[in-house]
């Protein structure tokens, strides 16, 4: 087990290191002078020179990288070029909003997707199975931003049931989180279905049936528990995907989360915030992945000792 944990943690550190290096390379990729780009197209020469000095761009690439990494370790990405506040602080302020949306989307995806998956597995080829499959393929083929736009068009513009955008009471959460959840629900339905089918055909379930247990008890108490390991893994992966997908969803629904801050900062050429955001979201993602891997190893002895 210790070996497994150490190798996973090492892996996570390597991922974070590669991402931070990519973020470093990011600004050096800018066509032309980085300081010029950062200062903006209309900045006077003195300001560009001052910025170049401040960012250490006049030094060698190696010492720039060392300086950058030492700041990253402390979580310091300099101040936002737009707001003149800590770039990382801005990200952290907005993150709870993203987290709430992703959490609700996860409940929708796992809850509803799991239920449809179980229903499909009980009667393969039945109404729930075929309906669920169609629903799933539909959700997987439509870009999330289009589902979002259609949702606004139907439920906010035509029917007037739900608010179109912005934060607020519980009604404001429905459209964005449902949009975010639908795409992932497809995978959840498929996985739950196949995992449940495997378990339901196993000898242990046959034994429970012979024993005379009620079907409902067999399905929800025994089969679902055995099928839960892959489902939990996928749930974790989906949560991670929601954080990345928030970039689009928050832009459509005017949601004040970290994804929208990223897009706004990219458009406003506020690169310190872009760097902080890329780094922060990657860190969260790596941590979630790490937790999944560790729980997976904890639940499944084959991985722990393998």
């Amino acid at each position, binding site marked *: 087990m210790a070996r497994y944990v150490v190798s996973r943690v090492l892996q996570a550190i390597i*991922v974070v290191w590669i991402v931070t290096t990519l973020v470093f390379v990011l600004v050096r*990729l800018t066509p032309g002078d980085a300081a010029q780009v950062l200062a903006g197209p209309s900045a006077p020469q003195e300001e560009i020179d001052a910025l170049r000095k401040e960012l250490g761009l006049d030094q060698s690439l190696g010492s720039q990288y060392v300086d950058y990494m030492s700041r990253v370790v402390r979580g310091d990405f300099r101040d936002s070029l737009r707001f003149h506040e800590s770039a990382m602080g801005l990200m952290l302020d907005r993150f709870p909003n993203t987290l709430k949306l992703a959490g609700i989307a996860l409940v929708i995806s796992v809850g509803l997707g799991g239920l449809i998956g179980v229903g499909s597995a009980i009667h393969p080829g039945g109404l729930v199975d075929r309906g669920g499959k169609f629903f799933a393929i539909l959700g997987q083929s439509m*870009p999330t931003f*289009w589902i979002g*736009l259609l949702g606004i068009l139907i439920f906010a513009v035509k029917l007037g049931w739900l608010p179109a955008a912005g934060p607020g009471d519980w009604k404001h959460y429905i459209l964005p989180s449902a949009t975010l959840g639908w795409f992932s629900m497809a995978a959840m339905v498929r996985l739950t279905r196949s995992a449940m089918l495997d378990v339901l055909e196993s000898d242990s379930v046959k034994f429970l049936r012979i024993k005379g247990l009620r079907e409902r008890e067999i399905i929800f108490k025994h089969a679902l528990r055995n099928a839960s390991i892959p489902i939990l893994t996928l749930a974790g992966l989906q949560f991670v995907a929601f*954080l990345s997908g928030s970039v689009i969803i928050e832009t459509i629904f005017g949601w004040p989360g970290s994804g929208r801050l*990223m897009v706004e900062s990219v458009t406003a050429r506020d690169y310190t915030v872009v760097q902080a*955001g890329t780094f922060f979201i*990657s860190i969260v993602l790596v941590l979630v*992945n790490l937790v999944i891997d560790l729980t997976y190893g904890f639940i499944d002895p084959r991985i722990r000792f393998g």
Partner: protein
Amino acid sequence: MAASPTTIGIEGLRSPAKRRYWAALRGAPLIPIAILSVVVFCGIFGNFIAPHDPEAPDPLLRLQPPAWEADGDWTYPLGTDPVGRDMLSRLIVGSQVSLLIGVTVVLIAGTIGTVLALLSGYFRGFADAVISRITDAFISMPFLVIAVAFAGIVGPSLNHLILILGLLSWAGYARILRGEVLRVCQQDFILLAQITGVPAWRIMLRHVFPNIANTLIVLATLQLGITIIASASLDFLGLGIPPPRPAWGGMLAEGRIYMRTAWWVVTVPGVAIALTVMSTNLLGDWLRVKLDPKNRGM
């Protein structure tokens, strides 16, 4: 008397090649193939079949509804966009960009992924460790967030979009194909080739690659849909194809604020994306079952 295996083998050899060719297509998803053929046709000949100039605005014809609506007109079957350009023409020509990006990105990512998978699966050891770690890192990165950051910094353009998506999406190929390469390399014919002194690059190219090509084709087909959605997402955020060149994601973004009065500006391009992606998904699913050696002869 039951037929012996030998007679079956001879029968199999005698069956005409032509019939086997058609048998391979049996059960192919016809509707998805038809939809994809239309998209490919539009992508190649779009400039010749578009009824109007897709990039010429006409302020007098802003937001004309589609033909079947009350104020519709068959001159503009799918209506016009917020600056008075024909939706149908933009849709037809817009497929060019989706197709171009989809195919080139899949080629770039597929090539990188295949080469890395061959290297790490064939040589194993240190090379494998390094390549696998990098692959894992790329798989667990927030794809869209990094794509947005890159596109924003290097500036939106077709070439940049292709490079960004290509360089960020190879990891899936590398991971899955590596497993396949490992499996193939355990077989005797690889060992025999090594003993005979065939150079490593030749073994990889002539003996390993053909055995992983099926998986590669399935992956590439499924990845095509994901790439089209990703590029449309970047278009939608204004980080993809610069206007006025028509692209499906960009059309959605342009129509977004007019959604309340003109439903078609956000519906039409979305339907095009959804149909295309759904077709690639269904085709990929079919290929996966079809090309799986376990299902051969079924």
